[in-house]
């Protein structure tokens, strides 16, 4: 019984660890009218921080495939905004203020 409990706790810890490790963090710079290219895989649960390195305000939002939207609110120069990716599938990152800013991304399922 004690052995079973230890194995269960160890397995749980491993699962928790893998889940924790899967929530990666990414940083994307906004430079003037462009978003920094995203080279890493993006997964549900990942935390993305947008850093406004431009000399003007931006207002980034992410539209998921189901039409739901994560709005990051206004970022004046130098400000950071963070979002946790919610849905797998294609998504679009845009700026409300500057429609020319656009990045199409693919969000993968959470790694288990």
């Amino acid at each position: 019984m004690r052995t079973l409990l230890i194995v269960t706790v160890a397995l749980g810890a491993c699962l928790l660890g893998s889940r924790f490790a899967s929530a990666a963090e990414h940083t994307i710079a906004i430079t003037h009218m462009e978003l920094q290219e995203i080279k890493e895989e993006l997964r549900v649960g990942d935390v993305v921080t947008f850093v406004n390195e431009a000399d003007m305000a931006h207002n980034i939002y992410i539209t998921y495939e189901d039409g739901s939207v994560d709005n990051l609110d206004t970022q004046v120069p130098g400000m950071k905004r963070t979002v946790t990716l919610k849905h797998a599938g294609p998504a679009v990152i845009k700026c409300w203020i500057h429609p020319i800013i656009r990045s199409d991304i693919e969000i993968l399922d959470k790694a288990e």
Partner: protein
Amino acid sequence: MNSPWLMLCTVSAAIAALGIAVETQFIHVGGRALSAASVVSRANAAAGIAVPDELKAKFRRPEKIPAPKANPLTPEKADLGRHLFFDTRLSKTGTVSCASCHNQAFDWGDGLQRGIGVTGVELPRRSPTLLNAAWLTALMWDGRAETLERQAVLPLTAEHEMGMTLDGAVERVKAIKGYAPLFEAAYPGEGVTTKTLLGAIASFQRTLVSNRSSFDRWIDGDDGAISDAAKRGFLLFNGEARCSKCHSTWRFTDDSFHDIGLESEDVGRGQFAPPSVTIMQHAFKTPTLRDVRMSGPYMHDGAMKTLDAVIDHYEDGGKKRPSLSPEMKAIKLTPGERSDLMAFLETLRGPPFQVDVPRLP
């Protein structure tokens, strides 16, 4: 001709074939990012009108007219579009054409505070110029269209503008036999359809490009093309007056949306944004300043009659509310600086861009 980017010579030939008076010669863009050290200050402006080359390069004209892959620009499409643009039969009453509100004699606007269409009801917003529309990344004052093809639907079918249905417009054009060869030349084998009708109008609009002005000649290296006052105005525009925060690029707009604090109930782009996006409430697209009409009117609702009133507004900083753009900060200009700014804006006006009004089939 299948390339979405037509070479200058092709476009020039095409436009010449249409009888469009063109003085435009595009210059290759060699812009570089401005370094912090290049930020212009009043002190710099006063010290002999030294203008950084990096700053000037940001306003250099492009060399090609862009067009979407789905509707490459050809002379035949532009010619068909020119006919449709001037044809009042595309409106419900047969009395209003695209050219009614986008009149070349008024720099492709209408000079009115707000437009008037088939019903005679004054529209809620001012008719913007169509010049340089090929480069727009968001169309309409509220940005609800992403391409010229999609934009063309909106005034055509709006009740108080042209009041037609798309099917009705297609049927009416089909019934005019003289259009058949024009459609065949522009879209071989496709006939008169919604797609070809809108595509042709969009193509014609892409050929409406501001003529070169004295500002362009200065940017290209002719130092005497504009006055010292205009050069000081250019530096102010990019510096203390903060105009270029939004009126940037060679078109003097970055197509951005801002609430600039006008006394207006119109929520603009806010109509298409979730309520949580505060900054889009009362936000409208930044208009181009190329060929800006010195006699107004100005703003999305045409409420300001003079450029002095516009500058007064920016000096005041606009109505304070949560949606007010962070770029809106009160400025203070001396009478001399105001005069310099006006002198600079004058340099953005080239010879009028005009086309031959077609004899309609």
